């Protein structure tokens, strides 16, 4: 039964990750009036913002596509070269591109300074676990790496939570425009941090086994 639940949850995560990539890719028609860009018409004359926005989407998608298969042990062995290469792509795209551009875009978020603060904290809450996970693997601390990369990946998926929280805030709780942005800018990543800790608690025994498996 437990296996079945894990299997269903795993498939759900993969589907949601692919959906997030599909949403991100839909912006690459470069239509200035498309979806979220409708609320950002005043930013479109700012080239730095525009480049950061599209780079964030592109490399965010790359991070998701590189990161997701790394958790499927049957697909990619932990010690394999492919795991290392995809891992490097995942970490580098978060630490040097998607994270910093997210930090930049946070300053221009809808919802004013409180929403900006939420998204700034979100980008740090994403980059810090990723950096620690990188450090841990360099130190050959496999258990530490596994635990921190789970935290990092949970934060990568906060983009999915953001898109789930937005209609919850606007339709179920009925927040106004600005309040909804402030709500989602905190809720999406705090929820995922808690989710990450919950996963780690349930995997406590498994992480030890993974360490043995890698050694």
């Amino acid at each position, binding site marked *: 039964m437990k296996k079945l639940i894990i299997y269903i949850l795993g498939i759900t995560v993969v589907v949601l990750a692919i959906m997030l990539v599909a949403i991100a890719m839909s912006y690459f028609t470069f239509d*200035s*009036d498309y979806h979220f860009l*409708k609320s950002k*018409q*005043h930013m479109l*004359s*700012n080239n*730095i*913002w525009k480049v*950061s926005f599209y780079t964030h989407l592109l490399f965010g998608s790359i991070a998701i596509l590189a990161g997701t298969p790394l958790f499927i042990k049957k697909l990619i062995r932990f010690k394999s070269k492919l795991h290392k290469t995809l891992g490097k792509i995942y970490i580098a795209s978060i*630490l*040097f591109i998607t*994270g*910093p*551009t997210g*930090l*930049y875009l*946070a*300053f*221009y*978020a809808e919802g*004013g*300074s409180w*929403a*900006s603060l939420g998204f700034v904290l979100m980008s740090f809450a994403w*980059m810090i676990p990723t*950096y620690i996970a*990188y450090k841990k693997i360099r130190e050959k601390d496999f258990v530490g790496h596994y635990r921190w990369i789970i935290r990092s990946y949970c934060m990568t998926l906060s983009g999915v939570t953001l898109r789930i929280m937005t209609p919850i805030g606007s339709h179920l709780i009925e927040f106004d425009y600005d309040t909804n942005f402030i709500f989602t800018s905190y809720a999406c990543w705090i929820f995922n941090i808690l989710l990450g800790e919950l996963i780690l608690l349930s995997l406590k025994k498994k992480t030890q086994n993974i360490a043995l498996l890698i050694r």
Partner: protein
Amino acid sequence: MKKFFIGTLIAFTALAFTSENNLTKSLGLFTPKEEKLTINELDSIVRVKVTDTLRSCMMQANPHLFMTKCYAGFDVRVKVRDKNSGLRTNKSLKYMQEEEFDFYKRSDLTLSLFFADCGSEDLVATLYVNYSKNEILVKESFFSKTIPSEKFIEDFCEKYSNLQKKHE
């Protein structure tokens, strides 16, 4: 790695402060007091770039439009936050007091352009004004694209004159 990572973070944070962002707005860093926009200034840019031209081309196509015994004309409204209730309301520029008008030349303003004709009122378009750039972008309706005011006027005048010709 660490140095490169921290360097990237600093660079992107610094980039965010090269133009006005949410934080500089609340701290008033990019908007010194002398740059405050007055109602008259906003009114004049909207007149010059939109309403006066629209008015004259409408008059050309239909000379009696503004000669009715009841009121006909444009009304520009801006969304302001009520200081007491905190709610956003659409206020007409005509009836606005300078003290409740709290905008800066660099800020992007969203206005609603209405046309009142003998008691009936229609929303013509939404205007996005940036005074410092001397630019107005226009979005007519749900399905239409955001376009520069010059293009909007051109399209609007053409459509209006075709409509009048049909009536004749």
